[in-house]
């Protein structure tokens, strides 16, 4: 009996000694690829932390982060929870079809933040000097809204429909783009959100781009002769292919119906190269056929650049058998014909392929988020677009590089200047607000629009 007790004691002691030895001999880890975060790799020491008791927390953090076999234990814990029937891990729903979906409930939405944010934006719009029909607001509903049918039974989510309708009312004087139906239709046909990341896929961004173009067309996207009746014998600039085209008023006084306008005016994902498409100059009063071209250059081509992407939601869940996502870029947009300046470097592409070798492969779009990114294109039409954005815009903006002379992206999380001054200095002609819907309800950085961190 006594020997048994001794053996048990020796066994436990051996385990502790083994763990301690492993702790000493294993190299200190600085970064966790899985979690995409810097690990506690040093015990900081200060008089205050000793006195306040925070030193204990620091030691605990260090031990937790440097625990030998940390990744294996984390995966084991997540798998155990999943097999035990948990439908949520670390604020992420384990949805059907292998989707991981961020949990955001009404309790996560700060009271009054929506009012503050819409007020800040409306104040900016009113004082910007940009025409209202050239200002667009496009909140991106998250996967919890678009893929709500895949959520676990009884999953709590915030009321995105109500939020979207409220925003639509607040921005009624401008182009408000409600993407709910567009993205739901897209999701029926193709993967619109990543399974392991909170962002939309490039196909999702493309669906939004089509809707953006459609709404812009309704407001006179290329109407350089808007409200003018004197069309005859003029050359008219077309946004399509950046070409000057001639039209003949006497033979082209046909207003196409909306479907043919949208089908022909904007490039489609799949295009029949043997079919001639029609380009139209369009304004809110007149819509005239001006020429007939084949729009091969505008044909959108999506190219898969990675098939092993585990995104931000995977980093929270860390289950063992979650399949990889693929990342696509637009092969024939935003490459070579642009100069992209993010404040620290310049390049000739909207894509930073170095991120394909990193954990956060969504960073391939513009190399991640910067306070200000400017994109100079080869278009010469005097149109300068300001995109007030979050990371969802990064995969969307490359689609626009054939429509604007300059595109400026401002991320309010990092931007410290005055947006109003920026609009004046850069002679901005168009504004697009493109943020995830939940960010428009929760982000306090919109208050910077009222003044901004200024230098």
């Amino acid at each position, binding site marked *: 009996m006594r020997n048994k007790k001794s053996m048990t004691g020796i066994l436990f002691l051996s385990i502790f000694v083994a763990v301690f030895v492993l702790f000493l001999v294993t190299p200190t880890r600085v970064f966790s690829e899985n979690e995409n975060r810097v690990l506690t790799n040093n015990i900081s020491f200060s008089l205050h932390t000793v006195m306040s008791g925070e030193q204990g927390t620091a030691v605990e953090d260090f031990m937790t982060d440097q625990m030998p076999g940390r990744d294996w234990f984390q995966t084991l814990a997540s798998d155990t929870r999943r097999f035990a029937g948990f439908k949520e891990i670390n604020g992420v729903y384990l949805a059907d079809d292998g989707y991981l979906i961020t949990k955001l409930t009404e309790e996560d939405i700060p009271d009054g933040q929506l009012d503050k944010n819409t007020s800040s934006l409306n104040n900016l719009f009113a004082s910007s000097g940009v025409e209202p029909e050239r200002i667009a607001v496009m909140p991106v509903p998250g996967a919890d809204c678009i893929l709500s049918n895949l959520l676990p039974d009884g999953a709590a989510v915030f009321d995105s429909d109500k939020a979207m309708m409220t925003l639509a009312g607040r921005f009624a004087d401008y182009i408000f783009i409600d993407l709910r139906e567009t993205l739901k239709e897209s999701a029926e046909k193709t993967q619109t959100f990543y399974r392991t990341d909170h962002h939309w896929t490039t196909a999702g961004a493309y669906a939004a781009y089509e809707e953006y173009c459609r709404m812009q067309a309704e407001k006179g996207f290329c109407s350089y002769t808007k409200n003018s009746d004197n069309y005859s014998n003029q050359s008219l600039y077309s946004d399509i292919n950046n070409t000057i085209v001639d039209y003949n008023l006497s033979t082209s006084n046909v207003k196409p119906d909306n479907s043919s306008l949208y089908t022909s005016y904007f490039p489609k994902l799949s295009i029949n190269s043997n079919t001639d498409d029609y380009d139209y100059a369009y304004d809110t009063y007149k819509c005239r056929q001006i020429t007939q071209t084949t729009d091969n250059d505008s044909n959108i081509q999506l190219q898969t650049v990675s098939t092993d992407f585990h995104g931000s939601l995977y980093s929270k869940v860390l289950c063992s058998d979650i399949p990889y996502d693929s990342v696509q870029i637009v092969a024939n947009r935003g490459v070579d014909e642009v100069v992209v300046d993010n404040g620290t470097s310049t390049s000739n592409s909207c894509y930073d392929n170095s991120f394909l070798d990193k954990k956060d492969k969504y960073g391939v779009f513009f190399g991640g988020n910067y306070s200000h990114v400017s994109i100079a294109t080869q278009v010469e039409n005097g149109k300068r677009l300001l995109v007030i954005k979050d990371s969802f815009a990064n995969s969307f903006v490359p689609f626009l590089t054939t429509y604007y002379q300059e595109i400026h992206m401002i991320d309010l999380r990092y931007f410290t200047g005055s947006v109003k001054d920026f609009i004046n200095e850069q002679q901005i002609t168009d504004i697009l607000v493109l943020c995830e819907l939940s960010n428009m309800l929760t982000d306090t950085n919109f208050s910077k629009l009222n003044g901004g961190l*200024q230098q």
Partner: protein
Amino acid sequence: MKKLRNAAVLLLCMSLLLTACGTTSTSGDGSADNPEITVSTADVTGKVLEQTEISGIDTTLSKGEDLYESNFASLYTFDEKLITDGSIAYDSTGSTADEITILRVADKKDLDTVKAALKSRIKQRATDFGGYKPEETSKVNNAVVFSCSNYVILAICDDPSAARSSFMKIMQEA
């Protein structure tokens, strides 16, 4: 070796009894029982930045300057009248989370309100950088808010302990 050093630090922590800024308050931050000090937050911020290596910070705004008020309103949700002096030092390029904010509170009973606002600021910055810039997220997670006398300080930088030590030293000399 690094881990052995960490173990040594741990032992040292346990064996020392040290004092911070005067006597300890109920909140453990050394704020309540100190005599009131009056020193310019701009001067203190300048000295902290001199003594602490914070590569990202390139701009400092202080109360009385034209742009201070609008920036203050953009960052914090409390009434500016609670503050008699203040300085905000930050990275104007926005590429780093580095930030040193020093505020002098008019009435010590408002210290907790101001500290709560600065802690909210840390929370917001954690959201801003979370998932996108791990190095900056690490800085934000290690950020400190503390008070001494009627001053409240926010330090987001690589070594907030150094910023704290520097600030305490300056205040003791004041």
